């Protein structure tokens, strides 16, 4: 089967510049919205998915769906720390940290207020989270009124730069450092000494205990033993699973909204593509007649118009992808239901998302081009040649 050269389609698209540009831009906007919503949901999910490690386990009170609602007294914490599955630090102490977590209402730089997670951490907390590094200043000194803040907190909230004084629990704290947690949720937290926080925040109990397993395979045994220990009422989860579970509902909701919006919007763009392609077929009736007359098969004519439509959409899709790239630098914050406080994250644009955007555009072109292409292929030769 002889195929109509693609150059014919390209020249046609070029000949109807305005119409081609407008249709392609319409499709570009749909692809952009598609990628934008994926990047939003993906960014939120990535922040939580990358926070935990499979080598760590988290202990919280049984029945607590979130760390904030958990309570762990000192006796239980001591009993957990004595377990032999826990890895050891170089100084032969268990690599585990019982932590306090509260949320505190703070003003954003924009003037609105929201809750921020304030975490009382122990000497092992930093070693347990290899992703957390000091980006600026120094770590707080235990026992002093010093705190370090996450990178996102430092960017988004007032009085959260190194050297600032921040008021929490009726005291003034010096911000001595900024921690970079590489996009994980710790970027949205404020850290200080747990032993100082307990009396200051008037909380005699911990919220959670995080520990490093000597080997990840020890997890089931440890979980079984601790959860059946009559001295305490706890729940043990892998740290990565614990954080990943928090992203479920909201990420799903964002994706759902994105899918709903883009699929309906795509329908509108397909209608536009249909219009354009029908007009293209209508304006080229005579040409189509000529193509058929010189021996191109009806299949080739159908394929040719489909190619033209898909090509037009792919141009749109590409523009959409290019416009979506800067979205990567957006950061936004939203309330995480698990912590009842702000979780800031960066939009995430992955090659997969861009490919999905292109595929989605091609699909729009295919659907929008099919019916006009079929019409073109079915044209009666004589009448179309006679057309004005």
């Amino acid at each position, binding site marked *: 089967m002889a195929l109509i050269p693609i150059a014919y389609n390209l020249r046609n698209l070029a000949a109807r510049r*305005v119409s081609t540009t407008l249709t392609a831009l319409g499709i570009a906007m749909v692809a952009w919205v598609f990628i934008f919503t994926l990047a*939003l949901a993906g960014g939120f999910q990535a922040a939580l998915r990358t926070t935990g490690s499979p080598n760590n386990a988290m202990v919280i009170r049984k029945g607590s769906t979130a760390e904030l609602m958990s309570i762990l007294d000192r006796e239980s914490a001591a009993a957990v720390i004595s377990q032999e599955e826990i890895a050891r630090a170089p100084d032969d102490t268990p690599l585990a940290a019982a932590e306090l977590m509260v949320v505190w209402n703070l003003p954003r730089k924009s003037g609105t207020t929201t809750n921020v997670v304030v975490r009382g951490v122990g000497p092992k907390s930093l070693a347990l989270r290899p992703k957390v590094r000091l980006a600026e200043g120094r770590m707080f000194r235990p026992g002093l009124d010093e705190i370090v803040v996450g990178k996102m907190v430092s960017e988004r909230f007032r009085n959260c730069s190194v050297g600032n004084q921040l008021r929490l629990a009726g005291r003034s704290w010096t911000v001595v450092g900024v921690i970079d947690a590489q996009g994980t949720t710790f970027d949205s937290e404020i850290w200080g000494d747990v032993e100082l926080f307990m009396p200051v925040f008037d909380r005699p109990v911990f919220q959670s205990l995080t520990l490093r397993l000597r080997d990840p395979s020890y997890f089931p045994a440890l979980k079984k033993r601790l959860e059946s220990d009559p001295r305490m009422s706890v729940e043990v989860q892998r740290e990565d699973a614990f954080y990943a579970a928090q992203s479920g509902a909201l990420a799903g909701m964002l994706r759902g909204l994105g899918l709903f919006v883009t699929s309906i919007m795509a329908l509108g*763009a397909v209608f536009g593509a249909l219009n354009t392609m029908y007009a293209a077929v209508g304006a080229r009736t005579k040409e189509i007649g000529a193509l058929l007359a010189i021996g191109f098969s009806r299949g080739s004519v159908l394929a040719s118009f489909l190619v033209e439509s898909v090509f037009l959409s792919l141009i749109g899709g590409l523009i959409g992808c290019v416009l979506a790239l800067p979205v990567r630098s957006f950061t936004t914050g939203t309330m995480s239901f698990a912590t009842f406080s702000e979780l800031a994250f960066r939009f995430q644009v992955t090659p997969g998302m861009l490919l999905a955007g292109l595929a989605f555009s091609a699909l729009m072109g295919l659907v929008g081009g099919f019916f006009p292409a079929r019409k073109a292929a079915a044209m009666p030769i004589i009448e179309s040649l006679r057309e004005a």
Partner: protein
Amino acid sequence: MKYMRLILAHLLRSKRRTFLTISSIAIALFLFCTLRTVMTSLDAGIRASDATRLVVRHAASLVFPLPLAYKERLERVPGVERVSWGNWFGGYYQDPKNQFTQFAVDPVSLFDLFPELLLSAPQRETFLGERTACIAGKALVAKYGWKVGDVIPITGTIYPGEWRLTLRGIYTASTPDADENTIFFHWDYLNEVMPEPRKNWVGIYWVRVGSATDAPAVSGRIDAIYENSPQPTKTETEKAFQAGFIQMMGNVSLLLTILGSAIVFAIMLVTINTMMMAARERTTEIAVLKTLGFDDGLILRLVAAESMILSLAGGILGCGIAFLLFRRLDFTAGGMIPNFRMLPGTLGMGLLLAVLMGLLSGLAPAVQAARLQIAGALRKVA
């Protein structure tokens, strides 16, 4: 108006194109109305707030409780008429996915503070008299198919264990923006089960003041009392309190606005394209009209009117469907967004957008048609 038939004839020249264009405009405006309704529904709590109701909470955050002892002190603050209190229970029904609000409240003062909660007198009587009784909103009851007398097990996440509450009443809300998705039960029941150190702590106090103008003064008085206590308070109007919640959601409205603008913009491009194509195909006809003596201004108005009619038809269709769906049919987005209700203002905005779209998309082709040179246009065809 006497040219209406001419305009209609033009539109019906290509029925398929007219249909496709109207549909894509309808889709764009339907989406616009949907996104805008998501935004306004999030604000329902603000609209439902009562200007004479104040919320007293711990200054640091809602997470910290206040002593029950504050109640009597609050009642003595000048300007305060009535005090009620409650604890956010934060449990779930059967599965952690089934989340809705539960509040442990003082059943007597609750109805004085929230007159918008309507409960029949006999049901109120039974609710007051039974320690483990609860009442639930109409929408919530409908969602889970409960009946009065059912025992509803709620698993606590803040207050551990399974709490078996007996449904003794179904309340309705007197205003459309008020929430009908909450369970209220006895604060005393919660308190008596708590171990000693967790007894007698209150999540938030609600305070009624005589008139809205007293609110700032009373708030100041309350916060001054506790300023230097271990549990300082933050008192604000219910409206400010609800607005604080919206602020915590972050810039949701900005994101929705970005999406909405992108959609409207995309469809605008599509419409402009269609109108230009339609005008181009009719070059000869327009030249003929001009030969017959139609002046440039009239041609301009005719072509512009055509795109206006298309846009308006699409607008009425899209906004109308959204309005019917989100207002008449009680669509709740799968329970994700309670009070999902389209406001008349959104309808107005959608229609205004349709008019704007019609103006903008008609502009280029109308000017082009008006400027058309008769001789050249007629020659082109031959």
